[in-house]
């Protein structure tokens, strides 16, 4: 397998060190250049924001977290089921799949206000639906690819082995789909976060997206940065869970990335 510019593995140690250096420079250089705190707060000011309003931030983290996770899970489930339907049903392949591609080209974020009107601005489900709509598409496309991108000769071989369709699915198509599904999960989880935050921007009720809007109105950049920090940590954590699952479920692919497909 090809590696990066140098042949050594990217390491957590070095990236953490790099990150810390950036934070320290950020803290030290802001006063030097006299940048006002409503434009860019120092890392210590963001930390102070966590100390004074930690409970408030956490209370707004929970709805965002639920919206993201529910939107992702529903998107993943419906995405995989639709993928199966499209691969196994010629009618769905001919009708749904092409229209999905067309629908997929609509910027889903643009219909967020509509969804809020339809489902209700107070309900968590309107935001879950927006997160779902954004997260769903890469899942369909990836599961269709995963269940159908199989060497023709492998399928020929399965026929000469007298394999039944259900056995073929369990022993060939399902494991074959895993790398594609996980590539889809990774794209979807990042999109679900975006969907949830945008839904909160528009609805302005609660959640980290809502906090960012408040911070914006109050010219409180520290609150905005604190919210972004929590959002990033959440994204990273969810992404990490998926990567961990991937390593457990696909021991044959350790160290191989989806870009190799």
């Amino acid at each position: 397998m090809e590696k990066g510019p140098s042949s050594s593995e990217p390491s957590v140690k070095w990236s953490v060190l790099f990150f810390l250096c950036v934070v320290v420079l950020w803290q030290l250089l802001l006063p030097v250049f006299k940048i006002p705190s409503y434009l860019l707060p120092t890392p210590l000011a963001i930390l102070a924001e966590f100390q004074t309003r930690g409970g408030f931030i956490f209370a707004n983290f929970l709805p965002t977290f639920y919206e993201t996770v529910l939107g992702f899970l529903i998107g993943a489930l419906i995405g995989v089921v639709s993928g199966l339907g499209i691969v196994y049903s010629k009618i769905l392949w001919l009708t749904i799949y092409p229209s999905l591609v067309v629908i997929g080209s609509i910027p889903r974020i643009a219909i967020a206000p509509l969804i809020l009107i339809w489902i209700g601005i107070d309900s968590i489900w309107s935001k879950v639906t927006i997160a779902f709509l954004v997260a769903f598409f890469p899942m369909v496309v990836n599961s269709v690819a995963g269940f159908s991108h199989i060497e023709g000769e492998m399928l020929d071989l399965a026929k000469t082995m007298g394999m039944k369709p259900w056995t073929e699915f369990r022993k060939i198509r399902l494991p074959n789909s895993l790398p594609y599904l996980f590539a889809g999960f990774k794209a979807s989880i990042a999109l679900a976060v975006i969907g949830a935050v945008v839904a909160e921007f528009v609805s302005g009720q609660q959640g980290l997206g809502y906090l960012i809007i408040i911070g914006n109105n109050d010219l409180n950049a520290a609150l905005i940065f604190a919210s972004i920090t929590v959002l990033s940590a959440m994204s990273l954590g969810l992404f990490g869970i998926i990567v961990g699952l991937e390593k457990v479920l696909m021991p044959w692919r350790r160290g191989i990335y989806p870009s190799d497909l």
Partner: protein
Amino acid sequence: MANLIEYERVRKIYNSGNDEVIALEEVSFGVAPGEFVTVVGRSGCGKSTLLKITAGLLPVTGGAVRVAGVPVQAPLTNIGMVFQSPVLLAWRKALDNVLLQIEARGLNVGAYRKRALELLELSGLRGFENKYPNELSGGMQQRVSISRALIHDPSLLLMDEPFGALDAITRDEMNLELLKIWSESKNTVMFITHSIPEAVFLGDRVVVMTPRPGKVAEIMTIDLPRPRTTALRDDPKFIGYMRKIRESLGVQ
């Protein structure tokens, strides 16, 4: 003894848009039980098509193929098949790839484990049973694929340029190993290749095919002793067969 495979005026026409491509034209010959038949020809002479038709993976346009007296109309399931690419499942270790054949048939996997290990050892893969395909070289992957094709002891083994992607040195080694394994199992083999020396070295008979339309130019009996050895490649008779095949292929 009656032939195991009987080709009777087999025709195959591919339709692509308005174009008709005649892949096989009036192919007739037979393969006796236990015989090792090699089919040699240029790319596009229809030799792979002939193999797929034999396996029941493609329908004929005209004529008939009979295996053990029965016309082939659906994929045959009592055969072993090897393709040019090893088509292993990336998520299965070598041993489990061999045992896929057994699982697919709903047979008792435990009962075949010993035989799978024997086959892997016979093909020089002792100690590699628990490696994933991406940890094996191309030659090793193809050995796994051959073991998989033999584990259920099929009476007919169909091989479609199995060594075509290997380097010449590995290929010669694989030829010897294949003959070693075959001398044990003695199944009937149809072996497709575009290598003239490979066809002569392996076969009891060589079917020479020419393209556009794909048809049999000549069938040559190879009267060389078995077990065949590397030294045979320098034998004047061996060289004579190669020259005759080149002539009938029209190689300048």
